[in-house]
C-alpha cells in the first residue's frame, strides 16, 4: 500500500506491459454526464452504468468520475482529493496545504484494494478552510497556487480536485474497475461526469486519468488537443504549470482561467471553439465584433483538434464539441434530468424513457444549470 517513486514508475511500466499492444480496440474514449435540474442528489451507480455500457471505448489505462453535491456535511470546506506515492509525500503535501489552509479533517479515501488495484497509490482527502480570505478572487489564486505547488511533485503527488462539495475519483483501470475501487455507489451528487480513457499520445497513469479539475470546474474529454503547446505557453503566463502529462490538462486550466475573468459559459465556449473566420464574415455587426474580439484576445486558448468535453461546475454542466465535430456527443432529456454521452445507448441504458435525444452540433455549447441553483450552491 505504501510505495516509493521507483515503485510507482515501475507499476506504470507494468500497466503498459500488460495493456499496450495486447489489447487493441479501434475506438475512442468515452465520456458521460448528467445533472438533476432540481438539485436532487443521485447515486453514483448511474454514471458507472453509463460508462459500463461504453466499455469498448476505453482500454483500461484510465477512468474516473467527478460529482457535485457529494459532501453536504462539509459543503463550505474545500475538499482536496490527492494521489500520493507514500506517507512521506503526504507529509510534504500537508505542509503545502497548511501554508494557506486549516485542515479540518484528513483521511484516506475509502477504496476496495482488490486485484490489479492492490498496488494503487495512496488516495487521501482533506477538508480545508482557507486561513486568510480577503476577497473571492484571492481564494481562486490560493487554490490555484496550492494545486500548482502540489502538482510540482508529480508523479509523486497530484491533486484530483479541490472544490467545494466536489470530488474527483480517478485512476488506472476500466471505468467499471474504478467505480468499484472508489465505491462510487456510496456517493450521491446532483451532477456527475465520467470518463473511460483510450490514451493515444500520452501515458496512462493515475494523475493522467480524467476528470481534470481545478477550483470549481472538472472536465472529461474525448479527443486530442493539437494546440496543447500554444495553449500551454499562454497559460504559463498566468501562473499555471502543466505537470500532469496529458493534453486535457490545458482544457481544464483554460476554462479555469476564463472563468476567473468572470466570463460567462457561452463566452467560454466561444473562446474554446470559436466560429471560423468565414462564418464571422456572415455575422451581423454586434455579434461579429464580439466574436472577432474574442478570437483576437483569446486566440491562444482556442482548442484545436478533435474534442468532445463535458464540464461540471457548481450548479451546472456544459457540453461542447470541437467546431468541426470530430467526436460524437449525444444529449437526452427526461423530466428533470439532462444526460450526455458519447453514445446514445449509454443514455437509454439509465433512462429508458428518455423524451428526446439529439446530437450536439460542432462548436455549439449545451449549458444546463440547475433551476434551483441555491439548492446546489454553497451559501
Amino acid at each position, binding site marked *: 500500500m505504501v510505495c516509493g517513486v521507483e515503485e510507482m514508475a515501475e507499476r506504470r511500466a507494468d500497466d503498459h506491459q500488460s495493456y499496450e499492444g495486447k489489447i487493441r480496440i479501434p475506438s475512442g474514449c468515452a465520456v458521460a454526464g448528467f445533472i438533476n435540474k432540481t438539485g436532487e442528489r443521485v447515486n453514483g451507480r448511474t454514471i458507472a452504468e453509463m460508462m459500463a*455500457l*461504453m466499455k*469498448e471505448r476505453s482500454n483500461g489505462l484510465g477512468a474516473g468520475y467527478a460529482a457535485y453535491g457529494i459532501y453536504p456535511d462539509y459543503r463550505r470546506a474545500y475538499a482536496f482529493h490527492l494521489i500520493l506515492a507514500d506517507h512521506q509525500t503526504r507529509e510534504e503535501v500537508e505542509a503545502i496545504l497548511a501554508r494557506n489552509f486549516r485542515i479540518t479533517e484528513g483521511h484516506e479515501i475509502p477504496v476496495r484494494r482488490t486485484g490489479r488495484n492492490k498496488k494503487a497509490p495512496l488516495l487521501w482527502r482533506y477538508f480545508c478552510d482557507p486561513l486568510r480570505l480577503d476577497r473571492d478572487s484571492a481564494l481562486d489564486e490560493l487554490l490555484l497556487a496550492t494545486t500548482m505547488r502540489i502538482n510540482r511533485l508529480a508523479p509523486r503527488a497530484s491533486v484530483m480536485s479541490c472544490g467545494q462539495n466536489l470530488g474527483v475519483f480517478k485512476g488506472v483501470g476500466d471505468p467499471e474497475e474504478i467505480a468499484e475501487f472508489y465505491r462510487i455507489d456510496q456517493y450521491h451528487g446532483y451532477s456527475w461526469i465520467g470518463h473511460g480513457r483510450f490514451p493515444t499520445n500520452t501515458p496512462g497513469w493515475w494523475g493522467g486519468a480524467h476528470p481534470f479539475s481545478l477550483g470549481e470546474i472538472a472536465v472529461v474529454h474525448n479527443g486530442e488537443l493539437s494546440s496543447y503547446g500554444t495553449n500551454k505557453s499562454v497559460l504559463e503566463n498566468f501562473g499555471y504549470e502543466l505537470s500532469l502529462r496529458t493534453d486535457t490538462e490545458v482544457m481544464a486550466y483554460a476554462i479555469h482561467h476564463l472563468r476567473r475573468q468572470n466570463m460567462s459559459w457561452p463566452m467560454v465556449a466561444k473562446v474554446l471553439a470559436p466560429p471560423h473566420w*468565414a*462564418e464571422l464574415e*456572415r455575422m451581423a455587426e454586434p455579434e461579429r465584433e464580439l466574436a472577432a474580439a474574442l478570437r483576437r484576445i483569446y486566440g491562444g486558448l482556442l482548442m484545436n483538434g478533435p474534442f468532445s468535453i463535458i464540464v461540471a461546475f457548481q450548479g451546472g454542466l456544459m457540453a461542447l464539441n470541437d467546431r*468541426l*465535430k470530430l467526436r*460524437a456527443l*449525444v444529449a437526452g432529456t427526461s423530466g428533470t434530468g439532462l444526460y450526455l454521452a458519447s*453514445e*446514445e*445507448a*449509454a443514455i*437509454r*441504458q439509465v433512462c429508458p424513457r428518455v423524451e428526446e*435525444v439529439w*446530437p450536439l*452540433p*460542432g462548436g455549439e455549447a449545451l449549458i444546463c444549470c440547475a433551476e434551483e441553483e441555491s439548492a446546489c450552491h454553497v451559501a
Partner: protein
Amino acid sequence: MIRTTVGGRAMKVIESKGVPYRELNREIRRLVAAGEDRLLLRGVNGQRYIGAGLKGMARLEIEGTAGNNLGAMMNGLSIYVHGNVQDGAGNTMSGGEIVVRGSAGDITGYAMRGGKILIQGNAGWRVGIHMKSREDQPAVLVIGGKAGDFLGEYMAGGTIVVLGLDTPLHQERESANPLIGNYLASGMHGGTIYIRGRIPAWQIRGQVQTGLTTPEESPPLWNWIEQFAAGLHLDCSGLFREIFTCLMPQGARPYAHLYDHSA
C-alpha cells in the same frame, strides 16, 4: 429459441438486452449460416457491428438503438431498425439495405460502395464520406430529415438524397438551407447529391456544379424517392414537384491542380 410471427411470417427472436456484442454477433452469424432468413433482435442497446461482414438474403429486424458500425462491410442483408442507429451505419457496405425508422449518427454510409441506406429521421455529420458506387449495385443513401456538416465529403460515387420531410422551406435569397450544414460536398469528385430546396454558395465547400431540378424532371431522383417511400411505408408524393438542388463534381478531375505548383 423463441419464434414469433410478424406480418404473417415466422421470425426467430434473439433477446439481446444486456448481451455483449461479440456474443450477439456470434449468434446472428450462426443462425444466418444455418439458413434462418428472418431474425428479430429485441432489446438492442448499443451493441456494435450487428450484421457486419454478412452475406446472403436474410432479413434482420432490430428493436432498440443499434450500436456503431451497423451492417459494416455487409453484402446482401436487409436490416430494418425500429429505432435509431449510432455512428458508422453501413460502413464500407457492398450491398443489401439498411432501413432506419429513427435517426442515424455521424459517418453514416462511410465508404459504402453498394446497396441502400434509408433513414426516416435525421443523419449526423460527415454522412456519405468517401462513398463510392458499384456498377452492378449502385450505392444510395436517402435521408428523410436533415443532415449535418460535411455531407458527401470526398464522395466518389453513388447518390445522396436529403428530403427534409418535416421542414418547411421558405428561404430568402442567400439564407442557409436548413436541411444541411456547412461544407457540403467538400472534396467531392464523383456521384450525385440531391438536396431539397436551394443552396447558397457559401454552404458548399467542394468544386461542384449545381443545378435545379424536380423529381418529375429527374427520373433517378423520382426513383430513389419512391424506393424510400416504399421502404418506410411513407407517402412522399407531395415531393415530386418540389425543387431540388443537384450537385455533381466539376469535370472528371475537379482538384487536378490543387496540390501542384500551379495552385
